[in-house]
């Protein structure tokens, strides 16, 4: 099955989102090093085509679940970037009022059910969102993003089996970036292609090039169509790469420079840019203008976040319950 090429507007939108993610992540890394971002930060740079290629098919009524490496998913799903920057800093203007931080950014109104500090925890949650959609018959779908490392968690197995027998409208997107922390997938994952694990649930398992927006976009379109039309779940394995370390501060002794540059040479943003220019969908100048706009907006977000107030200490005690 092939999905028709997205129109120009959607492509420029996708390009913008990918640039937003990259710009957000580069700045997050830098500002973390400068001590402006407390806690942990796991950067998504390099994997932009996956989040954006998938989320291009979704609306605010569709839900996603995410991971510790969640900034890209949030941005792709339309979470307010300005509020995300403030959240990273723990400011009261953050999307979670500073209570969640990088690993717990969420916005249920945008269909974003949360980054997640627990590897593999998002898959059952996505089944639940899909169950709501199925029971309501509203045609919504849900997507669970997770890593190669997460594909070894028991929740992966339980969620895929559950989704399969209930024919839930859910797409499981495994972002295989080759490593879980400092552990290569070649060691920890017993099977060559994680997509092949789909056979254990009698559902389709698709491999896509996670560095290529179109590869992801096309497979996602088919999977989302399948889900929306009641045919059940799909497992998509996106072969991708993280340009930075596992978290900021990782010495990355476990990868060679050659490997890193091999992937950096295939930068998904450059790839999309080249396509757009080559196919006369945009000029370099137009794209440069987008880059600039994104850069400026994000710089403003950081400035605003720096200036924003901390949460009031009383806030530590609220939002545990709706009522108690």
């Amino acid at each position, binding site marked *: 099955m092939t999905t028709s090429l997205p129109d120009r507007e959607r492509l420029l939108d996708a390009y913008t989102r990918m640039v937003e993610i990259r710009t957000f992540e580069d700045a997050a890394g830098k500002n973390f090093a400068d001590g402006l971002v407390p806690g942990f930060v796991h950067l998504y740079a390099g994997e932009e085509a996956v989040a954006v290629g998938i989320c291009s098919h979704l609306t605010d009524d569709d*839900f996603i*679940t995410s991971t510790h490496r969640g900034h890209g998913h949030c941005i792709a799903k339309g979470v307010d970037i300005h509020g995300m920057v403030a959240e990273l800093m723990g400011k009261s203007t*953050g*999307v*979670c*009022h*500073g*209570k*969640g931080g990088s690993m*717990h950014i*969420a*916005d*249920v*109104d945008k269909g974003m*059910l*949360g980054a*997640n*500090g*627990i590897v593999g*925890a998002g*898959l*059952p*949650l*996505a*089944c*639940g*969102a*899909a*169950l*709501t*959609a199925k*029971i*309501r018959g509203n045609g919504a779908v*849900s997507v669970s993003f997770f890593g190669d490392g997460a594909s070894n968690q*028991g*929740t992966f197995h*339980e*969620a895929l*089996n*559950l989704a399969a*027998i*209930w024919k839930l409208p859910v797409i499981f997107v495994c972002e295989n970036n080759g490593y879980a922390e400092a552990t290569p997938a070649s060691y920890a994952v017993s099977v060559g292609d994680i997509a092949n694990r789909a056979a254990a649930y009698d559902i389709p398992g698709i491999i896509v090039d996670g560095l290529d927006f179109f590869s992801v976009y096309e497979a996602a379109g088919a999977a989302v169509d399948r889900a929306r039309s009641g045919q059940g779940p799909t497992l998509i394995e996106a072969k991708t790469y993280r340009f930075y370390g596992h978290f900021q501060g990782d010495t990355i002794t476990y990868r060679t420079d050659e490997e890193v540059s091999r992937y950096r040479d295939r930068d998904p943003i450059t790839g999309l840019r080249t396509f757009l220019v080559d196919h006369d969908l945009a000029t370099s100048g137009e794209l440069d203008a987008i880059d600039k706009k994104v850069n400026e907006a994000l710089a403003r977000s950081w400035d605003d976040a720096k200036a924003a107030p901390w949460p009031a200490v009383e806030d530590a005690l*609220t*939002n*545990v*319950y*709706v*009522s*108690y």
Partner: protein
Amino acid sequence: MVAVARETRTMSMKDALNEALRIAMREDPNVILLGEDIAGGADVDHLINEDAWGGPMGVTKNLVQEFGRNRVLDTPITEAGFIGAAVGAAATGLRPVAELMYVDFFGCCMDQIFDQGAKLRYMFGGKAKCPLVIRTQIGAGVNAAAQHSGCHYSVFTHMPGIKTVIPSNPADAKGLLLSAIRDDDLVMFFENKVLYGVRGEVPDGDEGIPLGKGDIKRAGDDVTIVAISRMVNQSLTAAKTLSGEGIEVEIIDPRTLSPLDEDMILSSVEKTHRLVIVDEDNPRCSAAADIAAMVADKGFDLLDAPIKMVTAPHTPVPFSPPLEQVYVPSPEKIAETVREIV
């Protein structure tokens, strides 16, 4: 509160719970049930609109007949999977009631309960809620041995974001379950397996019992007993013996442990100056210890005697009948402990 006379019927706790589920499902289409064999016989030709089991203990019996298999969902044996799905469903608009067959299985799905469902509202800065009820079975007494007889409500009471409910009779079970389902927070609902068959008067209608309000199951001036779940009954038995000896105990059933009705307990201790807590759970870091600690702080000046706890020992639950018998706090042990401090 105005006391309104309501019609009642005698029924078992099991039937009272079943009635509460039926009422809640009728009043709100968002209420769904899910769990292992809560209908049973899914995909079996002759059971399309009928259950095979209606729950291992029969609590969900006949509900599939009325609400169908789209709202009464049998799950695979996948506790993390389906409890997690229930959390996801709750966060996106449904009001699921999940059945964790035995609380002893919490180790298979605790992350989805305490790390996901219970924390999401807080982590998301108040922008989400998780109106999920997890019903589960607790307690020794039927020789179900070490992996099917625990209580462990203390573990859930410990966790912020979770409410814990521990009914001791059919009427409370019905009213508390209704409130739990209507509540917007994650509620763990603990059903003592030995109480399923115990019958009592249950009010008609759909009125809930508020979470966080205890109930005085017996009034008395000499010693306050706080008793949890089945221990209310054990304490009532002990109370009769003690009354014969001239000792009148007041028995408080907290009904929910989180939130806890501290005022009711403290008011009673203010009157009796003596406190015994009876809890079938293991003793360390238990609900009994929690209540004792609360009173040792906030009610210290009211006390005339050490705070006593009657609990299970610090052991797993033994299988053999005579061993299980000594494991569970008995009326004799309760009475003896009360005598120690009067």
